[in-house]
């Protein structure tokens, strides 16, 4: 009745490993999983179920485990770890989940008592009222009790991505997968062989079903084959890697655990997410056994038969020396034989089939060793306190025999593991002889080999491998002779569930173990009208756990098909969704975390900004100085007020490198520019610039900038920082797709120049000192003109333009010379208190002039006419992008929002961006009717020059309302009386700008 040790080449039994489970110390061996180690120590109780808090044990020996989920409270604190997969390391701390105060005495088991209330659809039907209870009572409670494990408090994990480009991927290194790999050794195909265990072999190492291959002992053959593959030129192997997703097209994602059997190292990746592009995918990922539903089929001590067998051979532990075996097919023959070969005897053998369906070699074995055999019988249920203590065998209608045992091995059939195949959008079909869903036709370049294709006979393996892979070039036929020690005829009998002996609200057979879905729930769901499988799944939450019902969902379909009296193929399956096994968010994020979250862009002046206490803001991917802190205690508000004042007093300099610059040239450049912008550049003088607007085809402002015309065939345009890529894409789209007949080219030159925006009354004299041989006088260097100048061994361009309303210049210098020139400018401006300023001050200064910022005062629904910029539209242009839309009825209608200036009547009041403009002073409390909104504040700042707040707004029929009054509503229902004015506050006649 207890566990025994067996020798396995995959577990190092002279390397003891200690670990704790729920505070108690245990020993296992190197290579043990938590499950195999616990079984070695006769630990059967491992967790409590999700809804009913029923005691649960280890059900399987693989990734399909529904019950044995544990928490590992290291600094990574991973929840819901499958104990059947995770290998132990020295000092590992393991805790069971979902129980309080302890696993043995869990207060949640009271749910089991109230279980008739928690039937299917419980979540949808309860928690409906009273009003207000959801937020205050139900949700906090549900959040606390939901889930199984506890999530980590902080994200510490490091994982990486790895990309593969290959010709063939082989998923699964079992018998078929290894034969396929052998066939491809040293051919021209680049092959990737992926195995989820840390040893190759699959069924060859998990069982003794194959004795020899081509005369060699299996272990030897495995060693030789692995060496052959390792030494080949064209095959790479990934171990501890599970393929989780099969995308379109022929793109697979696989998850590799880098710390198998070891504590996670700090500077090594925890997980690798492999992204694989291939020409062909060979799925040789095998099958998964399914269970049978009977009363209390969830008690610790019930285990799948093939899993028991895997514990014996793969992990070297015999979980119980005399289990009862319950089956409806011939696959358990090898389990019986394995036990007998090790000197153990099954307590009983229960087979649902007729004698004539059972193979002779099985019957002989049972007979020879005096194993009680119950033919044409089934398990009615099992009983015990927190574990299996006795099982009830039903031979005829009510003839029940009780057998004392501590373990029950169940085999309800073998499911080809079709998850990946259906993810690839291949079609499956129901095989009514083997009672399986198996692949029918591929949608992508997918080949299935071995048991996943529904081939359960090892005899046919090599024929299948040869036949299906012969289309690949350079491959030859493999000669494979297998000495098989397994069943010959599967002979499965349809059995999804057994009936309870007594009717009771509390007796349960489970259809899904992880989500505590009983067979009664399935029946109830159908009764309530959920007879379509996709609805039924969601109503009952059947197969929605982390195991996706791998051992149980087909049974549920079988049960439902019987209720509906339909063929199982008519009922169909639900869609298997990726990932196949749980994937940590760490793996999905890869290195795109914390400082690598998004690529960062810096200007050549960046080091200077850092040294001068710039506080940065992200503009797209760029790091731009937001403001500069003069001293540690200076607040942002203080800094911006100081910077703004200084610019208008003497001069300020802004790093404008991030704004886009595009060089446009060609025979038809002028025609193109006239089509892409609202302006008419034909009358523009060479070597001068124009403030230009770009619209979308819908007539809305898309971007703005300054277009410098060198000549009719050569332009350089600037764009906003955020719009640079979009403007270039927009130009390329039209040039390539709409007007390919125009000879014009455009190149981005954003990175080829650093841009310094220097403005203020003293800017002229500062630049004259820096560039002593350039004449910056108003006569020789008029507003909106530019020129090229020699500078050291290079050339610079200077444009006279300003976004601040003061005299200003834009200096364009190649990056190599940029930082030195910036510092030189500061050197020559020592007498003038030149202030470096950031984006916030820039926003403030332009607002004082009423200049718009695209994206701030516009939002994609604003036309140039709304912005009072009609003068920028070339009247004589027949066509440009957006022109036709400007006369659409929606654009010419009366009450469109128009740009205006807003000033508070009381100069001490402050207006905020985003506040609404309304007609009435008072608002009723509480507000019962919608308040008419005239518009909203788009920009607002406290002007240090004028000593009061200035704001811009978009208001319905704004231009008509200029001179009038309105109110701005604030969050606390107080309203601020305001004047509607023209949007120009400082130097409205632009006298300073043009001086």
């Amino acid at each position, binding site marked *: 009745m207890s566990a025994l040790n067996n020798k396995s080449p995959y577990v190092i039994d002279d390397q003891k490993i200690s670990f704790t489970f729920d505070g108690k110390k245990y020993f296992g061996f190197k290579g043990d999983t938590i499950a195999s180690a616990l079984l070695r120590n006769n630990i059967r109780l491992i967790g409590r179920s999700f809804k009913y808090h029923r005691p649960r044990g280890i059900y399987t020996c693989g990734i399909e485990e529904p019950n044995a989920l544990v928490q590992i409270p290291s600094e990574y604190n991973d929840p819901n770890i499958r104990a059947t997969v995770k290998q132990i390391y020295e000092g590992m701390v393991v805790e069971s989940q979902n129980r309080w105060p302890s696993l043995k005495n869990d207060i949640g088991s009271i749910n089991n008592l109230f279980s008739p209330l928690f039937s299917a659809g419980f979540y949808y039907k309860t928690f409906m009222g009273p009003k207000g209870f959801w937020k205050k009572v139900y949700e906090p409670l549900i959040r606390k009790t939901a889930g199984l494990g506890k999530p980590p408090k902080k994200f510490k994990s490091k994982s990486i991505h790895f990309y593969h480009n290959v010709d063939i991927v082989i998923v699964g290194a079992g018998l078929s997968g290894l034969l396929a790999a052998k066939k491809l050794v040293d051919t021209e195909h680049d092959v990737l062989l992926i195995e989820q265990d840390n040893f190759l072999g699959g069924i060859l190492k998990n069982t003794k079903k194959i004795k020899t291959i081509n005369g060699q002992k299996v272990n030897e053959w495995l060693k030789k084959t692995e060496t052959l593959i390792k030494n080949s030129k064209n095959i790479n192997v990934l171990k501890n890697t599970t393929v989780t997703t099969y995308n379109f097209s022929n793109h697979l994602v696989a998850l590799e655990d880098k710390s198998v059997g070891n504590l996670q190292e700090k500077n090594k990746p925890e997980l690798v997410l492999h992204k694989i592009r291939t020409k062909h995918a060979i799925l040789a990922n095998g099958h998964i056994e399914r269970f049978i539903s009977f009363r209390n089929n969830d008690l610790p001590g019930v285990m799948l038969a093939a899993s028991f067998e895997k514990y014996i051979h793969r992990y070297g532990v015999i979980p119980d020396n005399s289990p009862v075996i319950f089956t409806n097919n011939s696959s358990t023959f090898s389990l019986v034989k394995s036990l007998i070969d090790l000197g153990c005897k099954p307590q009983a053998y229960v087979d649902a089939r007729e004698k004539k369906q059972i193979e002779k070699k099985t019957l002989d074995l049972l007979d020879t060793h005096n194993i009680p055999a119950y033919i044409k019988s089934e398990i009615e249920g099992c009983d015990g306190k927190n574990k299996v203590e006795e099982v009830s065998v039903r031979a005829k209608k009510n003839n029940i025999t009780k057998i004392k045992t501590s373990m029950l091995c169940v085999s309800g059939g073998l499911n080809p593991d079709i998850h990946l195949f259906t993810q690839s959008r291949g079609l499956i079909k129901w095989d009514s002889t083997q009672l399986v869903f198996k692949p029918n036709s591929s949608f992508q370049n997918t080949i299935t080999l071995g048991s996943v294709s529904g081939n359960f006979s090892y005899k046919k393996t090599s024929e299948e491998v040869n036949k299906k892979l012969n289309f690949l070039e350079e491959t030859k036929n493999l000669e494979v002779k297998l000495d098989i020690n397994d069943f010959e005829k599967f002979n499965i009998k349809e059995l999804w569930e057994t009936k309870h002996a007594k009717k009771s609200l509390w007796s349960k057979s489970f259809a899904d173990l992880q989500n505590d879905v009983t067979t009664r729930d399935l029946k109830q769901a159908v009764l309530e009208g959920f007879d379509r499988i996709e609805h039924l799944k969601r109503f009952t939450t059947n197969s929605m756990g982390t195991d996706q019902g791998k051992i149980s969902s087909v049974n549920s379909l079988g049960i439902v098909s019987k209720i509906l009296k339909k063929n199982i193929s008519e009922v169909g399956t639900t869609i298997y969704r990726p990932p196949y096994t749980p994937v940590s968010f760490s793996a999905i994020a890869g290195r795109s975390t914390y400082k*690598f979250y998004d690529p960062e862009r810096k200007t050549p002046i960046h080091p200077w900004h850092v040294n001068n206490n710039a506080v940065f803001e992200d503009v797209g991917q760029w790091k731009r100085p937001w403001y500069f802190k003069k001293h540690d205690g200076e607040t942002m508000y203080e800094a911006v007020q100081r910077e703004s004042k200084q610019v208008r007093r003497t001069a300020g300099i802004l790093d404008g490198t991030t704004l886009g610059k595009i060089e446009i040239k060609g025979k038809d450049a002028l025609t193109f520019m006239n089509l892409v912008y609202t302006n008419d550049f034909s009358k523009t003088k060479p070597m001068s610039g124009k403030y230009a607007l770009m619209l979308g085809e819908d007539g809305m402002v898309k971007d703005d900038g300054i277009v410098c015309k060198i000549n009719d065939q050569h332009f350089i345009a600037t764009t906003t920082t955020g719009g640079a890529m979009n403007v270039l894409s927009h130009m390329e789209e039209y040039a390539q797709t709409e007007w390919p007949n125009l000879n014009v080219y455009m190149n981005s030159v954003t990175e080829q120049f650093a841009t310094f925006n220097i403005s203020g009354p003293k800017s002229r004299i500062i630049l004259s000192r820096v560039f002593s041989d350039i004449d910056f006088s108003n006569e020789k260097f008029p507003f909106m003109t530019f020129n090229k100048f020699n500078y050291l061994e290079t050339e610079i361009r200077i444009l006279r333009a300003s976004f601040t309303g003061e005299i200003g210049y834009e200096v364009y210098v190649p990056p190599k010379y940029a930082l030195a020139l910036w510092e030189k400018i500061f050197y020559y401006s020592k007498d003038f208190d030149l202030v470096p300023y950031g984006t916030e001050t820039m926003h403030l200064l332009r607002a004082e002039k009423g200049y718009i910022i695209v994206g701030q005062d516009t939002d994609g629904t604003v036309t140039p006419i709304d912005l009072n910029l009609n003068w920028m539209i070339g009247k004589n242009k027949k066509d440009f992008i957006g022109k036709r839309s400007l006369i659409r009825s929606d654009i010419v209608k009366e009450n469109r929002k128009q740009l205006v200036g807003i000033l508070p009547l009381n100069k001490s009041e402050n207006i905020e961006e985003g506040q609404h403009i309304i007609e009435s002073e008072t608002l009723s409390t509480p507000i019962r009717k919608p308040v008419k909104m005239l518009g909203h504040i788009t920009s607002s700042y406290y002007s240090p020059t004028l000593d009061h707040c200035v704001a811009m707004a978009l208001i319905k029929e704004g231009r008509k309302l200029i001179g009038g009054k309105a109110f701005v509503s604030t969050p606390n229902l107080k309203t601020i009386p305001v004047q509607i004015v023209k949007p120009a506050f400082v130097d409205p006649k632009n006298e300073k700008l043009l001086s």
Partner: protein
Amino acid sequence: MTKLFSTEGMDVVQKDLQQVILRGKGDEQFAQVINKEISLLPPSDNLRVVNNDEFIFAKQSFDQWCLISLKEQSHKDILKLVSIINANEEMLASDYSYGQVYFEITGNNKNYYLNKLTHFDFRPKKFPVLTMAQTLVARIDCSIYHLQDKYVISCNSSFEDYFKDRFLDTISL
């Protein structure tokens, strides 16, 4: 030239090179204008790279070429070349001399490390010698030139720090 990283099977060196981006029809006249200035004919097959001691000259798509100068020239000389080419109304030359950074990657394990940064298919049968490709590396737009036994990867200089940090991170993890 600065040695950046050296690890098992890969060495990365950063170089300061100069570049000009050329746009044009790629016809006889286009070739003549260029050949006259640098004594080198522009490659005519798409993605083809011509490589000698002085230049890497590559065709990036049907109307775009990049000319990379391997030997440092005075900026004035390059700007003169740009201006001569721009005298032709059907061509555009943009100076790209100081807005890009260049990394030269050698070693027989270089593909292993690069495969952690990009999905690009580096297999020789897909990316032969003396060809180039424009793709994403470490989420940044890059050009990769496959020269004999090495790759030269270039990207915008604003990404320099991020790119180097990502590379270092890839090697260390």
